[in-house]
């Protein structure tokens, strides 16, 4: 679905990313981990076509991302930002409806998709409320509903990039957002998520890519990537890795 080949990126003359290869297949959820400044956000911006790479290329469904007409691209690829600075009093429903802007499939279809997205993000009860009156967690869920309406999660041709979607959320909503992202992958979508919390990544991602100073330090299943030595080396923190008592996933104990 989304593919990066020998990707390199520069920002302000400085090389931020080099030699990144990544294949994001339909139906899988990949997490990107790394320290602050490791190049996670730059990678996301490059993958979404916002930042042109200085070398290598990004392919969406086999076609260079820059070659896609912007509206068509928007129907296939959506990005959930870390936070949004919307300062105008749209209703929640209107914000979610913006996800339908790239589509021209008629009002009835829009309404159905919007209602489903509102429901999936658990914000149906807020639909008529002003966005400005929401809490941080509610706002983030509204934007999740917006990007879900944009890519129509069930269609199986869509790609969703999430940039630290859980940064400002409480425990319950962290789980909810990542569970929804998993559902999208399970329905055939491709999901890439930047995370800070190793345990959330271990629990939800099919694969993990660990970035270290602009290079891929490791890429593979959570068990392959999240080894105590490697975490010590990249993050500079001594940890112990155990098996999660409930899931087949590593549990990182600091």
């Amino acid at each position, binding site marked *: 679905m989304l593919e990066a080949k020998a990707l390199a990126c520069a920002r302000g003359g400085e090389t931020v990313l080099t030699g990144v290869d990544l294949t994001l297949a339909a139906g899988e959820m990949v997490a990107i981990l790394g320290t602050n400044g490791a190049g996670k956000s730059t990678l996301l*911006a490059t993958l979404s076509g916002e930042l042109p790479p200085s070398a290598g290329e990004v392919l969406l469904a086999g076609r260079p991302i820059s070659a896609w007409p912007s509206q068509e691209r928007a129907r296939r690829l959506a990005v959930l930002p870390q936070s949004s600075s919307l300062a105008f009093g*749209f209703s929640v429903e209107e914000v979610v409806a*913006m996800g339908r802007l790239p589509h021209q499939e008629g009002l009835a279809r829009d309404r159905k998709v919007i209602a489903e997205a509102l429901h999936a993000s658990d914000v149906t009860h807020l639909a008529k409320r002003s966005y400005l009156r929401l809490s941080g967690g509610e706002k983030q869920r509204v934007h999740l509903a917006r990007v879900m309406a944009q890519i129509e999660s069930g269609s199986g041709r869509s790609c969703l990039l999430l940039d630290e979607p859980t940064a400002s959320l409480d425990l319950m909503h962290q789980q909810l957002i990542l569970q929804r992202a998993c559902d999208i992958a399970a329905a055939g979508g491709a999901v890439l998520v930047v995370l800070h919390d190793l345990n959330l990544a271990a629990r939800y991602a099919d694969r993990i890519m660990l970035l270290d100073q602009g290079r891929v330090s490791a890429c593979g299943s959570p068990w392959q990537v999240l080894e105590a030595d490697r975490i010590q080396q990249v993050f500079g923190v001594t940890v112990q890795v155990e098996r999660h008592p409930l899931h087949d996933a590593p549990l990182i104990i600091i």
Partner: protein
Amino acid sequence: MGSARRLSAVIMTLLLLLLVAGVLLSLALGAVAIPLGEIVQALVGILWPSDAEGGGSLIIEHIRLPRTLMGVLVGATLALTGAAMQGLFRNPLADPGLIGVSSGAALGAALAIVLGGIWLAGLPSFLLPYITVSGAFAGGLLATWLVYRLGQSVQGTSVASMLLAGIAIAAISGAVIGLLGYVADDAMLRILTFWNLGSLTNASYERVGVLAACCALVWWRLPRQAKALNALLLGESEARHLGFEVERVKRELILLTALGVGACVAAAGLIGFVGLVVPHLVRLMLGADHRQVIPASMLLGGALLLLADVAARMLIAPAELPLGILTAALGAPFFLVMLMRAQRHGGV
């Protein structure tokens, strides 16, 4: 959704009626009050000329009708460009007057008229409005671009940098216009003072024609960006991810607002706060969706400017208050209240 749509239809109808009322009042009231029957007669007489024209008809045809048309065009365009600018700057407090676009346009117009008058002395006078509009457009464009470059940040545009840029541009504009006063002759001086105050007194069909041509382009193109403006409010990269070509959209918005504001300033001088107050009132009634905010702002802007102009004519009759003073007196306190509320919400 159904009831919301019905509500907005009702509000749009009411705004349209308000505009019609404004037009009729603007035609009827002034130094001489003209009854409705005579207004209708005069309007019919303009469309199908006949010999039997009364004094009222003459006043309508030569004074009040061009003035009313100019009022509608200026009010609607200022409100429209105000709404567009607030979307572009992602800040509900942006206004062409406050952020210096109008001052820039005034400076451009003043330079065009004074220097044009000196250098191109032999030029036929019917070209004068076009030269003025071109100067105003260029000045407005430069100012918009400057403010945009200065105020841009990831979180949208900070009011502080916007207003500071506005102060700087207004100061430069004031200084240069002041200097121009020394090289201008009496007729030019009158025009220059007129700009600083803002008024519809100089309305003529010639000016209305130039203004209407510019406004037509702005009215035709800007509303088509309503969806893009909605997306821009989410943030520039969000708009890009929603499939909008953000750079192109921004370029068009800047060009069109500069043209709209430039044409209004060239025609009627500095009339502030319309672009700030009108979209804000509309958002209170209809919400933030530009597909509604834009047409409603145009209706309300035209109506309010006409009513303000009627008041400017009536308050100290037979003398006339400059319209710009009236809109500033009403709009500036409104702006202060908005600023205080934004401050309380930590939003400045």
